């Protein structure tokens, strides 16, 4: 992009061509007043405050809608302008109820600021009150409150809902003095297409759209904003925790435009789902179980018990009788310390975490194909991709801020979306081609796309020739997957397979986005390999805006993997069974290390049941809800000689523990999370922990020291320095470089700028490798006894096992209970109506759950959320494992349903 120069208030400034005069001014420190403007929105030009004088042009111009031109001479603050602004503000105030003393926006209100700056006469015009003829659409919403008497009709909220969020929930009704913000037909907000993201609240320049739970909790002047990284999904949104230090309380969450990756946008969980931090149910002191009951204990007593139990189990049964679960919720520093403790102190590689349950097949699959198991591109590139192929990702619900990025890309008209998903998810409305394929038939679908590409000569011969190997294997393997044959397997039309293949192959750049619909299968690795094949076949990897992009689930699942909280690798994916790696870490950690790779999550459970594993140390994981086949998990955990759980709540898993240790939440500690685009971002302490809760890494260091192994760090930053010294991909990452927007690994040294997209000239493994992948049906198919296919997943409002989200008032209000989605045809057959409770049975268990009747699922297929302990999906799921990644098949099993 070219820059141009113009003069603003006598100063020559430079700005990117195409930007407005207002952008040019703001970027160069000239504060032109503006109320309807937001950098994320198209200009509205309605508030009339950004008026400026442009030499040679008559009258005053709205600088927000005026494109800056070379040589323009602009004055922003003449007498005439000031007079005009003053009058405009006085008119605005005639419509705005001035109650600053009781307003939550006091101190963070543009109208207030400008009224002061131009010293307006608040009583110049008589007050106008709209005749409110309709009930307020936010009356029953627990998070968002609209006050029409404070509204200045700037349209920011309506436009962000439409242009950025894409929810189109709100609009303006009527005209002139009667204008109000409302929903279509003025229905209750909850009955509209509102996604409760609260963007309308975030963007309101006055106090008209407010964060309801924060009302009366604190005035802006008493709040401190602490910039940190969101603790929910892998997008890694930068949020500001607005805290009241005096009362050690989180008041609300805000976010500022201009900061990647989220540009001020948040989802409902990020903005309204953080009140779990102050929940009275937080663990505040260690607990020891005696005669089946927990009692309070001191840290000294609890740690002594942990140390003596772990030491004696290790002495009696050997190090491999111990295991630990680290956590994708905790920081890189916590994970690093946990895996170092497990390897150097417990003496085993039996460490794993819930990445096993979400993206283990990504890590193994992409490592085999490309040499690195991470998202190849950056989030910002999604917006610019000419073609996006989303498969097995309900992005708008599970990675909401990436979801809205896809929506924006498509709605801008510059991006074509191909979607394949067994459920008719929200993105299906934006997709040019939507294929509702049957769960577990991904390989057949992708192979058929490749069949079309090869038979029509659309492959990228040069890329295949120069950048890859073993192409012939794939060419042969997909020969028999004609679109007609795959159509039969997948339940989609051959025509749509052909069209998708052509669109994908012909694109100048195409990005594949996938998530757990691909990975959570017994063929998860195969699924990932076939997507990698597809990308390499068309040269759609290793360049900007094109690649293979797994969206990681947890906030720090990428980081937990990077830190080596996995049974087969040290930090930075250095193999534990490689003698050089073993020698390197033995020297660095001053300990004997095992060269034998450890067990994975589900294998640890099996080993516990078989009494091969005797003791487990769990940090921040809840396998009693998250793992497949729960009845077995319970048997495994209760069979242990010793279980210690370190968490922020007494989870279903913690209830089974012998010792429970209270940990700090993300808001109470310093550290880093690595988001799905490999960006290492800071987590900053905003609050003091409740009671005696302590940071995970400090507790683990204490246990290590008490077990006779010296491990001390001054602070989290010192841990990151050690990580940098041992993991080459983190080599240049230190806290002093993370003050701005974070760094994307690989970042090899202090001067390395980080890596926007991977495999640019060369794959991490050298050449990209094609794999022959054949279609294998799901392990358990519907039959007469269990006639339905069950698929499981998340919903927008809840997270994982609900430990945090179900303790959030807003999220609980929006979605208080679990449900099973079934097609109207099946509902008629079963004789069930909306909300009716169904009994769902599989070969492994049964649950009762209310029905939600929807055409999202096709007849014969049902969908269940897994957040709710009252009706846990994993009582039904099958622990069939992918042979390489050991990820369970959460996404397909057979069930029967009874009304």
């Amino acid at each position, binding site marked *: 992009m070219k820059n141009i120069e113009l003069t603003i208030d006598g100063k020559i400034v430079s700005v990117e061509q195409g930007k407005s005069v207002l952008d040019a001014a703001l970027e160069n420190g000239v504060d032109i007043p503006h109320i309807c403007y937001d950098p994320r929105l198209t200009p509205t030009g309605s508030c009339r405050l950004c008026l400026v004088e442009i030499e040679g042009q008559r009258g005053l111009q709205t600088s927000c809608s005026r494109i800056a031109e070379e040589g323009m001479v602009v004055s922003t603050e003449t007498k005439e302008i000031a007079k005009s602004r003053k009058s405009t503000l006085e008119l605005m105030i005639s419509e705005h109820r001035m109650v600053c003393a009781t307003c939550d926006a006091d101190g963070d209100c543009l109208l207030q600021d400008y009224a002061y700056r131009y010293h307006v006469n608040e009583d110049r015009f008589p007050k106008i009150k709209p005749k409110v003829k309709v009930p307020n659409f936010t009356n029953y919403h627990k998070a968002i409150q609209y006050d029409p008497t404070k509204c200045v009709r700037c349209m920011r909220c309506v436009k962000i809902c439409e242009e950025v969020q894409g929810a189109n929930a709100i609009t303006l009704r009527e005209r002139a003095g009667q204008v109000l913000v*409302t929903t279509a037909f003025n229905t209750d907000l909850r009955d509209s297409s509102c996604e409760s993201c609260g963007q309308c609240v975030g963007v309101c320049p006055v106090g008209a759209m407010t964060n309801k739970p924060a009302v009366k909790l604190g005035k802006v002047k008493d709040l401190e904003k602490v910039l940190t990284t969101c603790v929910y999904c892998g997008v890694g949104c930068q949020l500001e925790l607005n805290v009241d230090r005096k009362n050690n309380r989180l008041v609300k969450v805000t976010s500022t435009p201009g900061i990647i990756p989220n540009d001020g946008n948040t989802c409902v969980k990020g903005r309204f789902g953080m009140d779990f931090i102050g929940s009275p149910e937080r663990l505040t002191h260690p607990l020891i179980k005696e005669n089946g009951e927990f009692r309070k204990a001191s840290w000294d007593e609890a740690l002594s018990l942990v140390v003596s139990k772990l030491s004696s189990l290790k002495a009696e049964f050997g190090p491999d009788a111990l295991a630990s679960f680290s956590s994708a919720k905790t920081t890189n520093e916590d994970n690093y310390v946990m895996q170092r403790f497990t390897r150097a102190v417990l003496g085993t590689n039996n460490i794993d975490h819930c990445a096993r349950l979400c993206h283990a097949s990504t890590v193994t699959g992409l490592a085999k194909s490309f040499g690195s198991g991470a998202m190849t591109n950056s989030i910002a590139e999604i917006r610019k991709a000419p073609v996006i192929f989303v498969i097995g990702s309900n992005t708008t619900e599970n990675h909401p801020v990436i979801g809205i990025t896809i929506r924006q890309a498509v709605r801008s008209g510059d991006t074509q979306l191909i979607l394949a998903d067994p459920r008719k998810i929200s993105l299906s409305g934006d997709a040019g081609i939507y294929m509702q394929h049957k769960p577990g038939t991904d390989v057949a679908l992708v192979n058929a796309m490749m069949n079309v590409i090869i038979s029509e000569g659309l492959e990228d011969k040069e890329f295949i020739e120069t950048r890859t190997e073993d192409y012939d294997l794939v060419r042969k393997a997909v020969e028999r997957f004609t679109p007609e044959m795959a159509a039969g397997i997948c339940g989609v039309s051959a025509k749509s397979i052909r069209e998708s293949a052509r669109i994908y192959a012909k694109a100048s750049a195409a990005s594949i986005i996938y998530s757990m619909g691909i990975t959570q299968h017994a063929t998860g690795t195969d699924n990932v390999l076939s997507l990698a094949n597809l990308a390499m076949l068309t040269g759609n990897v290793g360049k900007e805006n094109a690649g293979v992009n797994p969206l990681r689930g947890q906030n720090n699942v990428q980081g937990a993997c990077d830190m080596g909280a996995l049974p087969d690798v040290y930090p930075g994916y250095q193999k534990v069974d490689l003698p050089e790696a073993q020698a390197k870490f033995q020297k660095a950690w001053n300990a004997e290390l095992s060269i034998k790779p450890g067990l994975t999550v589900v294998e640890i459970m099996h080993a516990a049941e078989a009494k091969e594993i005797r003791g487990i140390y769990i940090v921040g994981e809840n396998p009693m809800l998250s793992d497949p086949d729960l009845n077995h998990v319970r048997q495994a955990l209760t069979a242990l000689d010793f279980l210690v759980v370190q968490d922020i709540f007494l989870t279903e898993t913690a209830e089974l523990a012998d010792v429970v240790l209270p940990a700090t939440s993300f808001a109470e500690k310093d550290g880093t999370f690595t988001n799905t685009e490999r960006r290492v971002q800071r987590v900053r302490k905003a609050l003091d922990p409740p009671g005696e809760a302590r940071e995970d890494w400090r507790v683990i260091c204490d246990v290590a020291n008490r077990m006779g192994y010296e491990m001390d760090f001054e602070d989290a930053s010192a841990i990151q320095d050690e990580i940098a010294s041992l993991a080459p991909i983190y080599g240049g990452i230190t806290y002093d470089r993370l003050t701005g927007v974070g760094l994307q690994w690989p970042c090899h040294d202090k001067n390395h700028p980080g890596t926007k997209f991977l495999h640019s000239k060369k794959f991490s493994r050298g050449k990209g490798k094609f794999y022959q992948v054949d279609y294998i049906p799901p392990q358990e198919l519907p039959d007469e006894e269990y006639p339905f296919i069950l698929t499981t997943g998340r919903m927008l409002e809840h997270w994982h096992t609900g430990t945090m989200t179900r303790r959030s008032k807003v999220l609980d209000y929006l979605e208080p209970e679990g449900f099973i989605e079934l097609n109207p045809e099946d509902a008629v057959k079963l004789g069930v109506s909306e909300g009716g409770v169904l009994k769902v049975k599989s070969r492994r268990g049964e649950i009762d759950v209310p029905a939600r009747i929807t055409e999202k699922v096709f007849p014969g297929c049902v969908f269940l959320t897994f957040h709710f302990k009252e009706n846990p999906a994993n009582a039904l799921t099958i622990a069939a494992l992918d042979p390489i990644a050991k990820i369970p098949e959460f996404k397909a099993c057979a069930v029967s349903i009874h009304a």
Partner: protein
Amino acid sequence: MKSGTVKEDPGVNLARGILEKHQLMLEKPAVGRDLEKSQELLIPLLQDIQDAYGYLPPPVLEWVSKKTGIPISRMYGVITFYSQFYLEPKGKHTIRCCQGTACHVKGSQAIGEAIEEYLGVKDGDTTDDMQFTFESVQCLGTCFLAPVIMIDNDYYGEMTQGKVKKVLERYSKS
């Protein structure tokens, strides 16, 4: 059509025809630039729907929104902005009484009161028999006829309270 009845809601069949006329009966809802083009047709589309149904039935609008991709919130915003659109059933005949400056000077207020008295309804309301909807408007643009009323698409100028009754009687019979 008999007096005292409105057109029965014929479902979405009429709307389907209107979408076809505007080439908006698409295979799937539009997105991106296609949607922008569809949205440019929103006002004529709403006018045609209102002509066909007598008003804008919300269920029909919901259906049109699903078919075209035009957000229902956008439709509602446009509908409530323009006074020509109605979300509730209207009388068979619409009486507009001008209250512009010229008509005001010539006593339009009394004309309005006469209409209200004759119909037994207030400004903005519809008679129980669904024969008339009455509304005051700011200007009908025919000041030379002041005071003026308009019934459906016909103007009646130089009104008096007596003339009003006569004109309305004619419409009551039809």
